[in-house]
């Protein structure tokens, strides 16, 4: 039971505000937004999705940069409300085709219409896109597609960090095609988020696949659909052992640790032939979510070396090796590595002959970023860091990586066939089955060289070294900047250095 529902923009404007029970004061959206905003500024990280202010419980989920929020005074189930908020966002997306601030502002009357039917006096009535169709009369105003970010896997994954990305389909369930006739099609996406942690010696410490089979159906007449998965699929913690050679990579069986299914899925013959039968509801939904901890071949191997290369210098070498067939392509690969807070600058050296790579040292959050357009078999980068203090080895890393690989899935789970059980008069509907693998938490801990002497000695600023260091910097354009920065540290000492170095400049 909720009391109010509202959607706020990133700046905190009310886009939609619905009060169902009149138990919570009107200014709640204001209170909520301030709390969320200051939570972060107080250094506590993101505000938790549920918090209580003066007896009012505030719930929120972030979808497409918007805050979907609800309030209540009752001690309700947090899962219930958060699931509901997420579902409302999805229903709205089903209707508008695209969910963002612009589309929501343009269609807020339609959203109110939906909200009226989804919730009555705080109690959920229905969240079925299909049932709602008969109660909703506004036509969605479709936002200009040209203002949308470019389609394709790269764009769709940008929204939300952990949420399973939606399909690239941005068509409303109620809108008609410009041509008039509706196109009969169905999309099935197997999306896998993989998490791997490599130890500093290159072993896999933990690995997990969180997968989902998403469906979005535009078929008229709600036909029954059968989805067949790998016949040798097994469920339960069978294949956990590393010594189980039969389950080695390649043709091995797929073992799910656990999975769950959408309401509409019937599992009558699942135990026999691994077939899911369902009458898909309108709109987008996950047919099945699954989780795998069975070993799999990670698509990328990462090696990192961090080496002290002088008193206030260090070298970082990152090597990335792609271990999937060259027929598949990985996009938008980004390798990141946090650097020590006192890093002043970093220079980069790529292998000769590489194209489409970007390198950057993010000054604000002290981060090294290396972007690759396309993965090659082996790519590497050498970066030289300059720091104000020693002790770099303990503070750099770990290296993390994000990427998207289409038409590839790490688990080898497959949709063997997609059958539409229908005596159809029309043409055969379009059936799209796609596989996407995406990095969730892909981390390699780095190997410190010179590890034995991990600088347990005291910091030792000798004026000559400092001077020498600065002298080295004289030629660089960062010089003035550098002086400004260093003055914040060891005051007396560096002030002196500053003087002497500006004298040098004068020369």
């Amino acid at each position, binding site marked *: 039971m909720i009391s109010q529902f509202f959607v706020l923009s990133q700046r905190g*404007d*009310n886009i939609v505000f619905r009060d169902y*029970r009149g138990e919570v004061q009107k200014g709640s959206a204001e209170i909520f937004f301030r709390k969320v905003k200051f939570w972060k500024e107080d250094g506590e990280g993101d505000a938790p999705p549920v918090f209580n202010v003066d007896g009012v419980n505030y719930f929120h989920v972030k979808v497409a940069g918007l805050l979907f929020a609800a309030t209540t005074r*009752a*001690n309700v189930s947090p899962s219930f409300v958060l699931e509901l908020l997420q579902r409302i966002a999805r229903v709205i997306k089903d209707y508008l085709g695209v969910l963002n601030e612009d589309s929501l502002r343009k269609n807020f009357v339609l959203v109110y219409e939906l909200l009226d039917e989804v919730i*009555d*006096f705080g109690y959920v009535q229905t*969240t079925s896109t299909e049932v709602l169709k008969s109660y909703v*009369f506004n036509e969605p105003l479709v936002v200009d597609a040209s203002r949308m970010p470019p389609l394709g896997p790269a764009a769709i994954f940008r929204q939300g960090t952990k949420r399973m990305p939606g399909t690239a389909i941005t068509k409303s369930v109620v809108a008609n095609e410009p041509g008039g006739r509706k196109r009969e099609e169905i999309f099935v996406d197997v999306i896998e988020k993989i998490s791997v942690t490599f130890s500093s010696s290159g072993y896999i410490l933990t690995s997990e696949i969180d997968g989902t089979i998403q469906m979005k159906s535009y078929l008229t007449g709600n036909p029954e659909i059968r989805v067949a998965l790998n016949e040798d699929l097994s469920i339960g913690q069978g294949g956990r052992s590393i010594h189980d050679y039969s389950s080695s990579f390649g043709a091995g069986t797929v073992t799910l640790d656990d999975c769950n299914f959408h*309401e509409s899925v019937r599992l009558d013959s699942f135990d026999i032939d691994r077939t899911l039968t369902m009458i898909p509801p309108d709109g987008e939904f996950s047919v099945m979510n699954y989780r795998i901890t069975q070993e799999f071949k990670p698509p990328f191997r990462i090696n990192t070396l961090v080496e002290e290369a002088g008193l206030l210098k260090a070298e970082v070498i990152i090597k990335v090796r792609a271990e999937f067939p060259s027929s598949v392509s990985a996009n938008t690969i980004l390798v990141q590595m946090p650097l020590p807070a006192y890093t002043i600058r970093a220079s980069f050296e790529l292998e000769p002959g590489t194209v489409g790579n970007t390198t950057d040292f993010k000054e604000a959050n002290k981060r090294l970023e290396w972007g690759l357009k396309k993965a090659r078999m082996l790519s590497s980068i050498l970066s030289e860091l300059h720091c104000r203090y020693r002790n770099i080895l303990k503070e750099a890393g770990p290296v993390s990586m994000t990427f998207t690989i289409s038409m590839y899935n790490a688990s080898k789970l497959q949709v063997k066939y997609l059958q539409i059980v229908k005596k159809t008069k029309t043409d055969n509907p379009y059936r799209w089955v796609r596989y996407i693998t995406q990095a969730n938490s892909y981390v390699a801990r780095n190997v410190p060289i010179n590890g034995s002497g991990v600088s347990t000695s005291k910091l030792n600023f000798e004026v000559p070294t400092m001077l020498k260091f600065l002298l080295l910097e004289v030629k660089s354009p960062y010089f003035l900047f550098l002086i400004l920065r260093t003055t914040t540290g060891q005051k007396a000492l560096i002030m002196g250095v500053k003087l002497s170095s500006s004298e040098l400049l004068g020369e």
Partner: protein
Amino acid sequence: MAPPAQSNRSPSPSQPSGKSEVSDLKLQLRQLAGSRAPGVDDSKRELFKKVISYMTIGIDVSSLFGEMVMCSVTPDIVLKKMCYLYVGNYAKVNPDLALLTINFLQRDCKDEDPMIRGLALRSLCSLRVANLVEYLVGQLGSGLKDSNSYVRTVAVMGVLKLYHISALTCVDADFPAVLKHLLLNDPDTQVVANCLSALQEIWSSEATTSEEALRDRETLLSKPVVYYLLNRIKEFSEWAQCLVLELVAKYVPSDSNEIFDIMNLLEDRLHHANGAVVLATTKLFLHLTLSMTDVHQQVYERIKAPLLTLVSSGSPEQSYAVLSHLHLLVMRAPYIFASDYKHFYCQYNEPSYVKKLKLEMLTAVANESNTYEIVTELCEYAANVDIPIARESIRAVGKIALEQYDVNAIVDRLLQFLEMEKDYVTSEALVLVKDLLRKYPQWSHDCIAVVGNISSKNIQEPKAKAALIWMLGEYSQDMQDAPYILESLIENWDDEHSAEVRLHLLTAVMKCFFKRPPETQKTLGAALAAGVADFHQDVHDRALFYYRLLQYNVTVAERVVNPPKQAVSVFADTQSSEVKDRIFDEFNTLSVVYQKPSYMFTDKEHRGPFEFSDELGNLSIGTESTDTGVPGHRVEANDKDLLLSTSEEEETRVPSNNGAYNAPSYDSSLVSIVASQPQSDLLSTNTVVPSSASQSSFAIDNLLGLGVSVTPALAPAPSPPPLNLNPKAALDPSTFQQKWRQLPISLSQEYSMSPSGVGALTTPQALLLHMQSHSVHCIASGGQSPNFKFFFFAQKAEEPSIFLVECVISTANSKAQIKIKADDQSVSQEFSSLFQSALSKFGLP
């Protein structure tokens, strides 16, 4: 009425400031009101949209009420809906104008299109205007009988809305009875679900004043209703399923076959993709099996995988909600999750609220076999860029060290932290080293060597500084420059902003003085002088106290300030197990996320219709109680008591080491014995005294390696000593409450119940009557199988001296925990035996 922040937002075309636009709209609406020109509906739509968008951003458009109503006479359903939305929002502030809308709403309620009927009825009920209720009753009556299910669902919610506007009208029209009929007979499951929601809300609120409603509410939990709903569960929407599952969780099955039937029926709900359904099912399973230890254990195993899947499949928000519940389960039964520790490793991109939970879970599941991996992982986080998480990780390492596994290696790591030369790492590590030393004094040599190298100048955080100073005082004999470091700190007294640090300084200098008088004497003088002159009350008082103590007698002062200390065996848990049980009772509610029982964050009237297990429902009124005041009062007493007893709880709980497969609610890791804080060295003497008698007797039992069951072995049926009780004693609840708060616990014992006694507890009333026959009267009772709680009182014959008893009986392990408070403490032992002998006879023929 624009919201305050309106002013500081940048003006944008969609957010005008108000006034002139509103009057402009008014004019335009007026022009369109009478018009019948083609296309007028489209222009109306545009205007209505504008009005509603103003309403959304908080501009007051209530002045348009009349015009809006005039314009809404239209067959256009989109316009109608917008108008309804507007009217619903402003009718409450414009009750007179709201009357204008009644006509067209009533007409629409009779429209032939069921959708229009439903819409109109919903809007009619949403007006929230008290003097319009007369129009509602008739429409609702026909709405509930409508042939269309949509109209019926709307009508059922309408009844609830009516109840909130005017409870009397709703009850007088006999609507609850109609809803009850629909609940059991309507073919549409959403109608049924709405009836259930509405009835729970109505009857819960009626139950405080009406016995009948209380009984009615009980019927919702009767077998026929519960079975009827369960048999149809798959026809309900996922949201309604949650509602039903929540209700069934309150149902008490008659035997274990029934429990298994229910569980088998609902087994597949654990595979639902909706986390709310899975958690509701989990709650039901856990509560059903509370009294069956081994099945309960199986349930834990069973729900593990589905919950882990939910954690990794949803949005961060959804997984947080599930993870909070998993956290609760891990805390209750860490050993079940010990092999899943890798699932609780943090991912670098997770929000910090998730990481915090995971760190606590990692700490909880650490045992002999996985400590090495877990601590290695935690040490990785300590170098994390996210500083709050790095801190938490170090604390987690320390907590694991305090849990005794592999201390050796961990101490090494902590000392490495000290050498990392990051100020926050050093600070956290210092605090931990201090705690470790309190538990493992044998490590002092290694630790002190490292701590001695840390310059106090580099430590800024008060907590860390206080820890360092404590170590300086405590180990001043081993640290060569301790007096001189303290001296330099005293010299900078005025620069020290934290009172906590200054308090510690005083105590540390005192301790140092007793160990190395010649070197410290001067510093001590300076410290006391600075302390006495301090503006902070506590610092001033402590300095003055030390000064006078020293003046009085130095050896006494040493005994007070620096007594020989025993190593702390277990640190106090922050939450009492009673509070934890309470949170567990409220599984699948916000209590779990906030880690507080609901009474701490929710007003009473909002505890919600689900709160059947609340004392309101289950606290039966004491049979002999002279006062028959409102039950709410008693709940209050109980709540206060819960709060009060948190600190006492730890002293009296004793490990029930009946093997690893204990019922999780009696997990031994939760048990703890309060240790005096280092800074309260002074106070420690008097905090321990009151219960020392009972504590030491337990300690002996434990030393001998005997279980707790030995204690009651003495007690089977001691003959009643010559203590006579007044059979007609009387005490009103507020006096009880007051006394309970004032008196210290004079006796606390655990006692084994006879099987027949446990059996007879199926009707707790019987115990009350039984105890009454022994002149022990019940003032309040509550709880649900397997945990019952009773408050008794008794009075000495011919004397006003009163005994108060809190008795917690767990039928799961046939134990009764008794706490006795007495006006006259000298006879509490006798009373205790009397009470126990009375209790032991319970259930015997």
